[in-house]
């Protein structure tokens, strides 16, 4: 190549180099500018400008650094850079809602943000430094920020015991147990209740094949003319537990055939004395008398009935037992009598107590139920069903396991399939890519998936075996929260000591008390050492509180002590001997360790003390704002008309000293009484005696408001 040409090439190359150097310089100049303009740096600078105009600039900028801030907790696998932008998170003066995000302080919570980081509760991508990447899911980052509405799920990831601060989570967990979700799914921390669905071993003796057909086809909408989804045609707050299965006509016929021949225990017919029948069968008062007895026995404490109120039909009553509005058209009358006399004879795990029935009461009440609580249209839409054939029964038996019926219902010789539904114990931590959305037009994230699946399982998977439940939005959100909380074992073993195991019952009575405790099913409504229902007062320490003689009288003829509460304790027609056995056991065994009867003696209180106590009660402390004595006073606490016959002196003193030491969630405020004041008030309360037996509260179904937990 000639030198001249080489020179030319060199010149051109020089030009290229010059141009490229200029571009390179420009690029070099751009990149610091681009770096300067990065999202998180803009937030850093605007925080400084923001802090300048606040009165406490110095404190707000004390630990400011222009770099990325990071909370690094190697033990918990936390690398959170959220505080790079959320710089005011621990500044108390920035708590106000007028402070713009991302600088607002975190509201006060039981955990320190610096110790726990952000993503443990809020999810999202901790290491990310861009707004969108940190908060939403992208291909590379899969955990979007958890909507605050479901944030209680994060409490449940570590805290297996129920927290009062997270009511939605607690409700969700309770619903998971109530709806038998663990019948099919393995779940973390949710116990399988003793009885899921009813035992069906003798269902053929109780109901007809036609009724089963109707129930399986539409468990919720047995009467529904307007297309509303309602329970048995009535508006109710309580969602029914039996879900709707998508069954074909053949499957319906097979299952009804199989169930209608289940008669493991034949009915033990009971003949009501002919004299009683003869005396009452022609009496026009029979049905109204039956209704009266039905109410007097407080059946509606546990069972509900449809009642017309202000033009609306509503279910009024308890939800412990089934709704009874149409039970007369459902059950076989012979079965009904046998059931009322001995519920455990049909269903060993029932919560229904065994009343002491006289033939007269039994006749009146069963006549009322089979005459009044009926609906002749109940089975109108059911096709005529012939006697079951062997082929139908065989298919029904197979379907009972395949459809998952055996997961909730007990039936002789059939056991549930193992791992019937997917394991959900780590479901709450799943990424969207692990979920099957099918054709559902919903946002692809875990929360939307859970809500869609719960609302209609077929929407995300038409072949799903999961039946359809009927939730309201609040329940749906609560159950979603509980499911989101199940992320497998807590973050690392070092934090397992946070996890408190669920309570087990330590109350196992023995002897004649145990027989009565089982017969009257006290635990259905009352709590004993953390075990039992929440409809009625906790009786763990009842022996310290109530005098023995008062207990005997109460058991024989229950009274309500709270003006706003409707008495719901049934009259069991208890014998004197039974009442005495129960009262003896309660007053000797159910004692509070902090209440010592030896420290006080009723004789030590003088009338002068009582006079002083009355003055303290009425003037200084104005206890009448909550308690009633003699017809005037407040509705909040129990009435004290008969306090002298009801409460023990030791209990009153201990209670005045510190109510929460005896009943931790009592709303009675703990006062700063002096010893003299306590003695005077005790003397006054002990002097209060009801002149005669107070009138029993009239039964009003309309006021069956839930006063749960309020106690007496």
């Amino acid at each position, binding site marked *: 190549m000639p030198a001249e040409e080489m020179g030319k090439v060199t010149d051109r190359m020089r030009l*290229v180099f010059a141009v490229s150097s200029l*571009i390179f310089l420009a690029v070099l100049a751009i990149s610091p500018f681009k770096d300067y303009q990065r999202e998180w740096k803009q937030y850093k600078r*605007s925080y400084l400008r923001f802090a300048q105009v606040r009165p406490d600039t110095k404190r707000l900028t004390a630990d400011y650094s222009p770099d990325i801030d990071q909370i690094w907790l190697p033990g918990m696998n936390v690398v959170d850079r959220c505080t790079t932008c959320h710089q005011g998170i621990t500044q108390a003066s920035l708590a106000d809602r007028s402070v713009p995000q991302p600088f607002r302080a975190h509201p006060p919570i039981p955990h320190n943000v610096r110790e726990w980081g952000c993503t443990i509760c809020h999810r999202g991508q901790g290491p990310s430094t861009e707004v969108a990447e940190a908060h939403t899911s992208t291909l590379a980052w899969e955990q979007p920020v958890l909507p*605050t509405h479901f944030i209680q799920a994060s409490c449940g990831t570590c805290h297996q015991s129920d927290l009062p601060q997270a009511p939605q989570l607690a409700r969700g967990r309770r619903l998971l147990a109530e709806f038998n979700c663990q019948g099919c799914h393995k779940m973390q921390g949710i116990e399988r209740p003793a009885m899921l669905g009813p035992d069906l071993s003798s269902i053929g003796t109780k109901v007809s094949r036609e009724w089963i057909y109707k129930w399986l086809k539409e468990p919720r909408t047995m009467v529904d003319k307007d297309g509303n989804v309602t329970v048995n045609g009535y508006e109710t707050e309580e969602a029914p537990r039996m879900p709707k299965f998508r069954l074909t006509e053949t499957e319906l016929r097979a299952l009804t055939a199989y169930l209608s021949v289940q008669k493991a225990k034949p009915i033990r017919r009971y003949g009501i004395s002919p004299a009683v029948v003869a005396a009452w069968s022609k009496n026009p008062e029979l049905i109204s008398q039956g209704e009266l007895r039905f109410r007097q026995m407080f059946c509606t404490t546990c069972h509900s009935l449809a009642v017309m109120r202000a033009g609306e039909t509503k279910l009024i009553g308890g939800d412990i037992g089934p709704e009874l509005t149409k039970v007369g058209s459902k059950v076989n009358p012979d079965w009904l009598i046998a059931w009322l006399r001995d519920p455990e004879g049909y269903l060993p795990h029932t919560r229904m107590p065994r009343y002491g029935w006289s033939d007269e009461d039994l006749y009146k009440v069963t006549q009322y139920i089979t005459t009044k609580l009926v609906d002749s249209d109940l089975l109108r839409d059911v096709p005529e069903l012939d006697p079951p054939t062997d082929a139908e029964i065989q298919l029904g038996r197979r379907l009972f396991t395949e459809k998952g019926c055996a997961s909730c219902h007990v039936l002789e010789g059939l056991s549930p399939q193992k791992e019937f539904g997917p394991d959900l114990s780590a479901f709450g931590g799943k990424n969207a890519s692990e979920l099957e959305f099918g054709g559902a037009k919903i946002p692809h994230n875990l929360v939307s998936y859970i809500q869609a699946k719960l609302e209609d399982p077929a929407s995300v998977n038409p072949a799903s075996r999961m039946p359809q439940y009927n939730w309201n939005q609040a329940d749906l959100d609560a159950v979603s929260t509980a499911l989101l909380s199940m992320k497998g074992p807590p973050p690392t073993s070092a934090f397992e000591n946070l996890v408190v195991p669920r309570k087990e019952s330590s109350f196992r009575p023995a002897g004649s008390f145990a027989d009565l405790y089982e017969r009257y099913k006290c635990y259905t409504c009352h709590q004993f050492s953390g075990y039992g229902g929440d409809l009625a007062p906790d009786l763990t320490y009842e022996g310290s509180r109530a005098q023995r003689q008062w207990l005997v009288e109460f058991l024989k003829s229950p009274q309500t002590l709270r003006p706003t509460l409707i008495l719901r304790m049934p009259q069991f027609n208890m014998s004197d001997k039974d009442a005495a056995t129960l009262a003896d056991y309660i007053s000797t065994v159910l004692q509070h360790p902090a209440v010592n009867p030896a420290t006080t003696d009723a004789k030590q209180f003088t009338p002068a003390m009582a006079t002083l106590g009355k003055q303290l009660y009425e003037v200084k402390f104005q206890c009448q704002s909550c308690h009633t004595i003699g017809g005037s006073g407040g509705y909040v606490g129990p009435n004290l008309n008969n306090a002298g016959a009801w409460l023990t002196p030791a209990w009153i003193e201990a209670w005045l000293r510190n109510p929460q030491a005896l009943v931790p969630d009592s709303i*009675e*405020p703990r006062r700063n009484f002096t010893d003299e004041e306590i003695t005077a008030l005790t003397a006054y309360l002990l002097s209060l005696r009801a002149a005669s037996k107070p009138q029993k509260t009239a039964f009003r179904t309309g006021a069956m408001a839930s006063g749960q937990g309020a106690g007496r």
Partner: protein
Amino acid sequence: MRIRGLAIAALLIVAVSTASGCRKHRETVKADPLLAAYDSEPDWNDSTKMVSLGYEQAQGKRVFYQYCVWCHAEATPAGPSNRSNLTPVPPLLADGSTLNAQSDNYLETIITLGGSAMGKSAMMPPYGRTLSPEEIRSVIAFTRAIAQPPYQPPGRPGSQYSPK
């Protein structure tokens, strides 16, 4: 020539990619006020409206419905309210026209020490030995959240400064 073409192409790629950076389409998190709330409470004057509550206010709601609702609401979970039995009639919790004028400090003291300590009716009992200071503050936060007319915190620097 081929070298120059390649060099220019390479430079252009570097320049364009640097200039455009890796700026991505920015998604915003859904801003439903109730999804961003820890809990919610129906407006006491209009039950179709929901007031969204933060964590502290939600704790206050819980405390309120356990301890205070019996006298400071029209209806209680157990039925009729105790308000009608009391003279003077206690204010409703959402009554902004009465409570907005009181400072947080005043409310904290009257809940802690009772009405008689502040020259009011002794019917309001002291809760300082039953509730923790946090619980009492949370009830006040709940009051402020549901107040009608709405509560305006006094003395806050009214900076309208926003980062963008």
